[in-house]
């Protein structure tokens, strides 16, 4: 009998506010240790938290984007545990009433879409960082991250494979970036995932779950879940049973080990934080946030297909990020005649070149207006598409806009029939046996002549005209 995998995910997303959740310290990454701290985020005696409302707004925006309920009144609770990088000995979180509940995310699966429930999104503060590596007999603590705002996004146990889990995470990752609520840079720990994994026989109740921690890339998440599923199935099939525990995935070894069992699970002694009144957000404010919501990837994709006639592939590529979509729309605005040509050139040529450079659309040396200038020259037959690729290369090297490059390199397409006829006749004269062959029915030789003529014209001959004139002259 087969096994069914059941996965629920908890994702910690760093909210990209300029200042921390409960004090005015900067949240910027990479500063010298303990330079972005103040008495509040150091947990000094008598210091009190004051909520950064921007965190609430961004969390509400995320909730609206997953069709969730926004609780107009939510509460902050203290989650108590001792750790040296947790200055107050408790973390401010939302336990009993989170700001966001009951949402969902539709993820792409093999046969269409699947709806994954999102139980809740709550606001909490991050802890600092403990550093042990390379230190002998001591640990160092950096509290720059202490108090940085997080959204914890908790899914229902709705995923049935590692691939679905990854699809959900990618969808969520794209969403929070689109909404501009998080940088979601996984290497900087701005998007961290814990997975609850269990297996069962189809139709049976949920099995005992293990919580996997420390999953910090899409690849490791897939590996870790697959490893865990295999481990659990093997355990059960060998007559054992899964125990509820927290496991840590070691990506270098490709295996997980038990971190703590159920007995050692923390009792966090949650209780309402008496320093913070209930978080109230008005319906009016929620409506305002909703009105300011940017177009989401799915909506953009659909619009690109219907409005601009793009293939679903191009529409998908160009709606991956807000920046890509914005760039594309600027390109179309500057070259409105042919949105599909815009999409082809941006998706294939420009993004391909940027990828080779290890660069991103936001750092593109060519602006949408400049690329439109190049497309204009293709449209008016000044250059061929092939030449245009060379021009784009030159533009990427900073040689100026399309017209400057075309002028400087003398790339203007040859469009007068006389010059083209002269080249064709030369080529025919140099290859009499092929002329003979073509005329005796070897149609395939036509391509040979096109190639030779283009080559002789250094690519500048208009391909359309070359075709037309060749047909005429080869007839004899």
């Amino acid at each position: 009998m087969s096994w069914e995998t059941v996965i629920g995910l908890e994702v910690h997303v760093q909210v990209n506010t300029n200042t921390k959740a409960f004090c005015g310290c900067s949240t910027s990454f990479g500063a010298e240790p303990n330079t972005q701290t103040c008495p509040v985020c150091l947990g000094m005696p008598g210091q009190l938290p004051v909520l950064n409302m921007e965190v609430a707004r961004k969390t509400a925006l995320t909730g609206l984007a997953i069709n969730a309920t926004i609780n107009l009144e939510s509460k902050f609770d203290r989650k108590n545990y001792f750790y040296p990088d947790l200055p107050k000995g408790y973390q401010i979180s939302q336990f009993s009433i989170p700001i966001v509940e009951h949402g969902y995310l539709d993820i792409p699966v093999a046969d269409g879409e699947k709806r994954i429930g999102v139980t809740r999104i709550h606001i909490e503060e991050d802890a600092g960082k403990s550093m042990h590596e390379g230190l002998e007999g001591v640990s160092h603590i950096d509290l720059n991250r202490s108090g940085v705002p997080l959204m914890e996004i908790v899914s229902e146990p709705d995923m049935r494979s590692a691939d679905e889990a990854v699809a959900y995470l990618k969808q969520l990752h794209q969403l929070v970036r689109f909404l501009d609520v998080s940088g979601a840079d996984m290497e900087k720990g701005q998007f961290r995932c814990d997975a609850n994994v269990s297996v069962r026989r189809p139709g049976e109740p949920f099995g005992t779950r293990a919580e996997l921690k420390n999953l910090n890339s899409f690849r490791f998440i897939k590996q870790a879940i697959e490893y865990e599923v295999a481990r659990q199935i093997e355990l059960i099939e060998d007559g054992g049973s899964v125990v509820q525990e927290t496991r840590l995935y070691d990506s270098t070894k490709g295996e997980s080990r038990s971190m703590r069992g159920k007995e050692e699970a923390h009792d966090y002694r949650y209780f309402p934080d008496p320093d913070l009144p209930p978080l109230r957000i008005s319906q009016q404010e929620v409506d305002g946030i909703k009105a300011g919501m940017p177009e989401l990837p799915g909506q953009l994709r659909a619009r690109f297909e219907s409005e601009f006639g793009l293939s679903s592939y191009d529409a998908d590529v160009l709606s991956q990020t807000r920046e890509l979509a914005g760039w594309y729309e600027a390109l179309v605005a500057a070259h409105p005649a042919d949105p599909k040509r815009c999409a082809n050139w941006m998706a294939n040529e420009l993004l391909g070149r940027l990828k080779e450079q290890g660069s991103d659309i936001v750092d593109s040396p060519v602006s949408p207006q400049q690329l439109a200038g190049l497309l204009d020259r293709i449209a008016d037959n000044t250059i061929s598409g092939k030449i245009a690729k060379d021009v784009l290369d030159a533009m990427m090297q900073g040689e100026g806009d399309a017209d400057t490059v075309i002028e400087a390199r003398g790339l203007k397409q040859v469009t007068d029939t006389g010059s083209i006829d002269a080249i064709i006749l030369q080529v025919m004269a140099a290859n009499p046996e092929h002329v003979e062959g073509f005329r005796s029915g070897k149609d395939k030789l036509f391509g040979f002549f096109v190639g030779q003529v283009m080559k002789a014209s250094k690519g500048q001959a208009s391909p359309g005209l070359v075709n037309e004139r060749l047909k005429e002259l080869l007839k004899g």
Partner: protein
Amino acid sequence: MPFSTLSDLKARLDAGETTAVELAKLYLARIDAYNGELNAFVDVDHQHILDQAKASDAHRAKHGARELEGLPIAIKDIFCTQDGPTTCCSNILKGFHAPYDAHVITRLKNAGAVLLGKTNMDEFAMGSSTETSAFGPCRNPWDTARIPGGSSGGSASAVAGGLAPAALGTDTGGSIRQPAAVCGITGLKPTYGRVSRRGIIAFASSLDQAGPMTRTVKDTAMISAVLCGHDSGDSTSVVDAPAVDWLKACEGRDMKGLKIGKPKEYFVDGMDAAVRKSVEDALAKCVELGAEIVDISLPHTKYAVAAYYVIAPSEASANLSRYDGVRFGHRCENPDDLLDMYTRSRDEGFGDEVKRRILTGTFALSSGYYDAYYLKAQQVRTLIRQDFLDAFDKVDIIATPTSPIPAFKIGEKADDPITMYLSDIFTIALNLAGLPGMSQPCGFVGGLPVGLQWIAPAWREDVLLAAGSAYEAATDWTTKAPASFGGAA
């Protein structure tokens, strides 16, 4: 002079009859002479106090006087001050220097007050006798074998003994009012949310509130006018709290038409009969002044102490987690590992009463017990609040004894925490309800002061001050001072 009211000192300063420096020297001399006996102050920096006084005189000369210009005010050691140590009278914070002033300290400084050292208190404000202080017990100037109440016992002792004309205290379950009562002075706990808690070391965040401890009602008003007001740095500080005209509220000289509620639960068997008589005499005086006494009931009073001793320790157990030996305060020598560092640092740093409350609170919040203790206590709290709301439908103000007994002997109850907890029996309920309360002297029992407690609806401190001022004007209790400290008893 050492027993002058703050208002008198202000008048003399304004009239040019004395200076801030002269006052500072006067009280410093009193502290030098008597603190050895009372142990009311735990830190006094003479030079720094004189420097503040000089600066105040200079400010007066150049720019005129601010609200509290040149007036010396003693500060409970729970308020963080940039100058000098702030320890909450705990070994775990010995040597701690806060890099900031509490918000109310800033307010006092901006009003020109001279901060007159730090006063003794129960460790982390947990106690009713100032015996749990890491600096040793403080004494009551009316009888130095007795406690000055607590937890703001040092502040009460200092004012009653003429070592300071006024002091700041904090009140979580009676810590301003009970010491004020047993030391024969006046103490006000404002409505929760009226005074910023920022920079005041937290005991129980939903209950803590700072307030003045003075010789007279008007003096509490003078200080309250400076202390109170919204602070954007404290989320529980109320933005649009109804304003009070503090000084005007003290002009009342009669009680015509005032309905005073007398709750039967606060006049019970087992309380000191003489204390009860003093308070009933005070109510008779109120009737002479035109008040009407209305018998009322606050039926859930009997659950207040139990609810308090769940809620306050629960909050404290989390509030005190930051004293972990990692960043500041005491750390044990040569810990074996992290757990050893935590357990030994905290074991060495905290006293028994603090440990008892951390344990109680940790237990009450534990999984499986939360509903039975913390949640139940919060439900009781709602009922107690409702009791008061119902009562204030019928009366304008409530009068009760502040403490069921006068000051007891040092050591008498130290080994019996439950009996000790009962000394707060009359003060705790209003903290749970967030209401303002005031204690003022209303007599003596065997040479020991007795306190009358007033309770008003939320934000109606003016009602407390008006009633208190009228009673004060009709009696002479505030003119008494302990003879052995140079006063006229």
